[in-house]
């Protein structure tokens, strides 16, 4: 039995799919039957190919117990499903479920897990071992915390027990802050316990990935150093491997300490030990008795498969019995690096303008990228490019406009821009010692940035196109053509020409874990500007899969799922699969996934170099999300063969002006709109169309910068942020139902995989909507029409592979919103619940096969007798300052799936899996809605009342409800004093809040504060009446009870029998 980690949230991303898939694969290699429980449908691990029994069910105690009862596995592997999986396993063990069912907990014993996780227990152990740890105490009340603070002084750091990604953590510098942070922490800890401890501000933060087997062999796979000192969560820190600023004696002291601790705890498997280091001193910060985000990073940084090795250790193997290397040592060795790895987190602040972007002990990043090169500079620049931020690279133009004061502010109070601010400060020749003092960053790193800054200055003042030596040095240092072009004030293409004329081309080196000392077979490469190339001559036809880069809002793990399947499909088709990607968390960057893995930034330069070097038959861009598809035009211009949908077809779909023409030709309707190229034209268009309008720039992912605008003043404010190089579309906002369709086309025939109906109406981004498959409220003629339109569009666009079309149904009419000529977010989910290997089919089509030749039908794939509901998951709690109100901008970080034979049942399971707290019967539901929503809200309120819930409302809404004869508890507006909704939430009087967005952006304050209050209390707050209605349905689904777990295989079996 293996537990996954559930939906993607901040602090828990794709790394556990990587770990879990490795575990599943390893277990099956051992000839074992694998039962998997995970509610995240976008993962590789939940494929029926990876586990014998896949339960896409909530990761709850009851569900897990039921699955165990039904499946009766011999063992449970608890340490590969992140904190969620680990907590669940511990809960089951402690409740006696495992003993009762005779399930053995594999690997680390539960007592050791407890000892590592319980702060006080862990501290006792450290004291016993004589290991230094920060002064600290575990508290269960604010009073206890205050007593400790009086004794130990400030600053103090507060961490709630048993939470992941540092949820609820914070720093307190005085009693006032202590009260707030401890109060919040206690409410967020599942055991109501917080650790208060001495805050080691400015100490270096070092992590060790350690593996121990049952025979007490220990190896340190990797030591990693955080560039940012203590105080910033390691998930939010720039991390460098191997450690760069530790002397050998410091390194060995930490390694030895890590071993003593791991042995003291009796851990078996992979774990992570964190230290704070200052000069000759160190403190033990914490131990994660499981595979973690850092172990994924360490695996990718060293080529050592930590999760697979940990799995085998759990099965009782010793390290040297595990085939893990090319030498006779098995997995019992410590990788030796001859390159440097830099990880940079990817933060969501580009999507959340209002968010507090300062970094601290609570993680805020949604994903990360890794750069590999032979020097720190090269690795850093590659990682920066991999982030796919706007702008040329490390030296950012917008920062050159900052005053010294602004720069100093960001350096002292770090946010996501600190690295760039540091580069800018180096460019301004600020002295290194001062920068080190200001930031707490080791002078070594600052010197490396100074080297880059000096080179950047040389490039800006020199003539890099003519000066071969300068260009050579700049490329060797790791600058991209684009950044050099920017620095020198010329086009990147000119730099490229000059570079190619000099024959300046990168070579590819192998990541081999042995620094070249032994011949390693791993086909895992990175580029660098040096002498020797280790890439073998291309043998046989190959195809390059362009990956999707870091996980960010709008581009999640789904695209990695698609990239992985594409690589597998190529292999199956007898074509060598090459993958280029830079996300260290994912399965696509596991070198076992493809025939050759290139750990590189996914940019034009890197892809082109690879194509020149490997001459693949073509490049697949339809699986790597917007990252990959955006490269299509440039690749096509450079003469690269883009497989699948022709770049002309991609452009036709992506360029809204041209797309609109096409729709006109096909006689299809879309919401009336105009493409405009200036603010004045936009204002004119909006006035003609009539407000509200939707404003959207071309080429967007996750609806970035897309907004519903209610009046001219709002429009002006929004247009200030728009990039006018491409047309902006202004559409009339049409109220209606949203539907999306995924299909595969081969140029002649179109297979519609499925129609997904969104619970929320227009105005909420499809990624944030609850989606239902098969649709519950669409009659056969409408479905037929959708299939017909999708088919027509796919053929007209020349789609060869996957396409996703979004529709609005309004007044009996079908309007086309957009067509995405690529794999969509919903492809993994539909593949799973229909049993159609959509990515494999699309890849084969791209290689030239037809649907018919694969034995696939055209038209709508038969709909199953069960219902699948995708429920979005948000990470509000991690992002203070972000409004939880939903709109056309996507905000969710992940999703969970609910499967059942009824809509209500599936909804209930999906919501439970997504961690939504459904209101308990008899609880009170509060309404505070905009005027236009009042009539509809009345009906909904009545339904809630009939279902036995109490009602509460504010002023106007209360009046409407009361007038209709409903009993309502009235709350005041925030400005009107007590009792108001925020107080109601704080005092636990309310279970759920329905708060629709008032128009425009003016009265944010009230609604915003109510929504944040709900988020901070962990209570549901919905800004769409549709969601609130679905919740009621889910409550019914839940209360109908009888929720036996069902494996995906059983559902599919039932489906196959029915068709």
């Amino acid at each position: 039995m293996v537990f996954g980690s559930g939906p993607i949230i901040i602090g828990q991303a794709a790394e556990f799919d990587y770990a879990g898939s490795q575990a599943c694969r390893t277990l099956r290699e051992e000839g074992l039957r694998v039962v998997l429980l995970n509610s995240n449908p976008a993962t590789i691990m939940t494929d029926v190919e990876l586990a014998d029994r896949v339960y896409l069910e909530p990761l709850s105690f009851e569900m897990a117990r039921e699955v165990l009862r039904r499946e009766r596995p011999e063992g449970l592997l608890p340490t590969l499903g992140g904190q969620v999986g680990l907590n669940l396993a511990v809960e089951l063990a402690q409740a006696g479920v495992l003993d009762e069912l005779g399930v053995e907990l594999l690997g680390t014993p539960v007592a050791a897990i407890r000892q590592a996780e319980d702060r006080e227990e862990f501290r006792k152990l450290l004291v016993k071992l004589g290991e230094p740890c920060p002064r600290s105490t575990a508290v269960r009340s604010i009073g206890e915390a205050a007593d400790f603070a009086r004794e130990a002084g400030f600053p103090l750091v507060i961490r709630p027990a048993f939470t992941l990604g540092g949820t609820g953590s914070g720093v307190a510098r005085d009693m006032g802050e202590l009260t707030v942070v401890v109060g919040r922490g206690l409410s967020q800890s599942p055991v109501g316990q917080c650790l208060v401890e001495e805050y080691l501000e400015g100490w270096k933060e070092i992590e060790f990935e350690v593996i121990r087997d049952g025979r007490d062999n220990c190896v340190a796979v990797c030591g990693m150093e955080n560039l940012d000192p203590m105080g910033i969560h390691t998930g939010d820190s720039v991390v460098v491997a191997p450690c760069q600023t530790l002397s050998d004696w410091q390194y060995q002291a930490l390694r030895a300490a890590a071993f003593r601790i791991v042995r003291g705890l009796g851990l078996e498997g992979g774990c992570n030990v964190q230290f704070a280091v200052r000069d000759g001193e160190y403190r033990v910060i914490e131990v994660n008795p499981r595979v973690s985000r850092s172990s994924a990073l360490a695996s990718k940084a060293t080529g050592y498969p930590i999760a697979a090795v940990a799995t085998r250790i759990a099965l009782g193997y010793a390290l040297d019995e595990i085939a893990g290397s090319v030498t006779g040592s098995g997995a019992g060795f410590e990788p030796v690096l001859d390159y440097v790895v830099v990880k940079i987190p990817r933060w969501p602040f580009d999507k959340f303008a209002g968010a507090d972007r300062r970094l601290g002990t609570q993680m805020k990043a949604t994903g990360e990228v890794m750069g590999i090169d032979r020097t720190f500079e090269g690795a850093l620049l590659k990682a920066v490019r991999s982030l796919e931020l706007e702008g040329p690279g490390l030296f950012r133009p917008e920062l050159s406009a900052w005053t010294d004061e602004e720069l100093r502010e960001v350096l002292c109070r770090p946010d996501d821009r600190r690295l760039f601010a540091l580069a800018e400060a180096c460019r301004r020749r600020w002295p290194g010692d001062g920068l080190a003092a200001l930031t707490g960053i080791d002078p070594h790193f600052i010197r490396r940035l100074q080297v880059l800054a000096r080179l950047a200055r040389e490039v800006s003042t020199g003539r890099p196109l003519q000066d071969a030596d300068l260009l050579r040095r700049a490329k060797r240092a790791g600058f991209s053509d684009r950044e050099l072009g920017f620095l020198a004030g010329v086009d990147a293409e000119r730099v490229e020409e000059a570079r190619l004329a000099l024959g300046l081309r990168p070579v590819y080196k192998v990541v081999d874990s042995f620094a070249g000392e032994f011949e390693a077979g791993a086909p895992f490469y990175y580029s660098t500007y040096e002498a020797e190339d280790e890439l073998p001559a291309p043998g046989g036809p190959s195809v390059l899969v362009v990956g999707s880069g870091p996980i960010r809002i709008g581009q999640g793990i789904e695209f990695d799922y698609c990239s992985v399947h594409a690589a597998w499909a190529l292999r199956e088709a007898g074509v060598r699969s090459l993958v280029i990607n830079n996300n260290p968390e994912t399965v696509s960057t596991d070198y076992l996934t493809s025939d050759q893995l290139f750990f590189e930034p996914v940019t034009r330069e890197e892809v082109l170099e690879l194509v020149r070097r490997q001459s693949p038959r073509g490049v697949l861009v339809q699986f790597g999300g917007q990252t990959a598809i955006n490269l299509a035009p440039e690749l096509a211009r450079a003469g690269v063969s883009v497989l699948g949908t022709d770049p002309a077809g991609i452009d036709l779909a992506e360029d809204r002006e041209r797309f609109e023409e096409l729709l006109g030709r096909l006689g299809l309707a879309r919401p009336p709109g105009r493409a405009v190229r200036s603010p004045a034209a936009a204002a004119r268009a909006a006035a003609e169309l009539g407000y509200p309008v939707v404003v959207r720039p071309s080429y967007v992912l996750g609806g970035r910068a897309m907004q519903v605008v209610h009046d001219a003043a709002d429009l002006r404010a929004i247009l200030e942020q728009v990039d006018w190089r491409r047309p902006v579309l202004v559409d009339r906002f049409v109220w209606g139902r949203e539907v999306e369709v995924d299909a595969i086309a081969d140029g002649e025939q179109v297979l519609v995989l499925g129609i997904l109906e969104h619970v929320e109406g227009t105005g909420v981004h499809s990624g944030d909507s609850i989606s239902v498959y098969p649709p519950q409220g669409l009659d056969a003629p409408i479905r037929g029409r959708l299939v017909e339109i999708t088919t027509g569009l796919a053929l007209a666009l020349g789609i060869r592979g996957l396409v996703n079309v979004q529709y609005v149904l309004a007044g009996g009419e079908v309007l086309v919103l957009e067509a995405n000529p690529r794999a969509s977010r919903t492809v993994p989910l539909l593949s799973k619940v229909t049993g159609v290997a959509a990515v494999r089919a699309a890849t084969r089509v791209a290689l030239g096969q037809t649907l018919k030749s694969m034995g696939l039908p055209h038209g709508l794939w038969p709909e199953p007798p069960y219902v699948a509901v995708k429920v979005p998951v948000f990470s509000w709690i991690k992002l203070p300052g972000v409004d939880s109100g939903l709109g056309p901008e996507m905000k969710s970080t992940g999703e969970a799936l609910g499967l059942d034979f009824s809509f209500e049942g599936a909804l209930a399971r999906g919501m439970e899996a997504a961690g939504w707290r459904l209101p308990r019967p008899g609880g009170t539901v509060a309404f505070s809605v905009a005027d236009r929503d009042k009539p509809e809200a009345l009906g909904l309120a009545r339904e809630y009342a009939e279902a036995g819930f109490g009602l509460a409302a504010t002023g106007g809404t209360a009046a409407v409800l009361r007038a209709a004869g409903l009993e309502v508890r009235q709350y005041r507006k925030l400005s009107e004093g007590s009792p108001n909704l925020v107080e109601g939430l704080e005092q636990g009087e309310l279970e759920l809040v329905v708060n629709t967005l008032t128009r425009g952006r003016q009265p944010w304050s009230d609604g915003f504060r109510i929504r944040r209050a709900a988020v901070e209390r962990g209570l549901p707050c919905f800004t769409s009446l549709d969601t609130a209605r679905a919740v009621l349905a889910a409550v019914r689904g839940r209360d109908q009870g009888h929720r036996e777990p069902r494996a995906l295989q059983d559902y599919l079996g039932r489906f196959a029998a029915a068709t």
Partner: protein
Amino acid sequence: MVTGWLVLEDGTRFEGRLFGAGQEASGEVVCNTGVTGYQEALTDPACCGQIVVLSYPVIGNLGASLRSCESPRPYLKGLVVRQLADHRDDGPGELEWYLRGHGVVGLEEVDTRALVRHLRERGSLRGVISTSPQASVGPGVEGPRVAEVTTPWPYRIYGDGPRVVVVDCGLRLSTLRALVDRYDCDVTVVPATTGAADILDFRPDGVLISSGPGQAADLPGLVETVRSLLGRVPLFGIGLGHQLLGLALGVGTRRLKFGHRGMNHPVRELASGRILITAQNHGFALEEEGVAEAGLEVTHRSCHDGTVEGTCHPGLPVFGVDFHPQSPPGPADAAPAFERFWKLIQS
């Protein structure tokens, strides 16, 4: 910046830029794979006369410090790195000053990975660092180098523990530290030329024969000394010292195709089956057949290539290892070797 070349005896050339002192150096080219501890590696007297290639690309990040010295000076001839990362805005950094001060020729910006891979294929080669790509590697006379690195006179570190004589064949300070700090041994370090009788005059509880440069076969005098000590006092050999023990017992040594040099070579402790990650710096090892014939018991083997890494004598209080059990530098996994020595000399 002066362009320089490393030319190997098989004619292969590697381009780089010169730093450090002078412009020309020749010697045996060896690779060290340590990620940490570059300064410890450079100051190991066992490097005497060698051109050391560091496979980890970023070197100099910690400058140069007294604490990381394994001997009073670097004995190597040349240092080859990918990136010398200690340049300051105002000129050379600490490491470069240090190397200049000791006459070490440096070559940076070299594709050291290519060099390591080449040496892996070709085995140990001699080479020359020069400003000319046409430089030729002079005829190799690889004589014994122990005389260059051993202490000129005996010295003593007082302690309350057992009395140990250390025969300095190229002693690393960390070996002394292990004896003194942990076990409070009363240590007398003697030159490698000291005869057995003189050693026994110190009335030692045990004798440690240190690591050092070159091969034991070139040192017949030392072998004789060790042979005379056999059975009269507990003996512990490290690296070269282990090979001297072997020769004294009639076991031949062989040159490893690719020496073991680095900070984390896995070694299996045969008695327990456990894996120890060890620091190593040796280019020779005991011959497999000889070990068996001499009746020595193999205690440790390399997990990578099966090389004999440690032996003990079943009848005599004599044992040795090829790795460095002292730590730091290197991992502490093999520290029990000192424990074993300590127990041996206690009894």
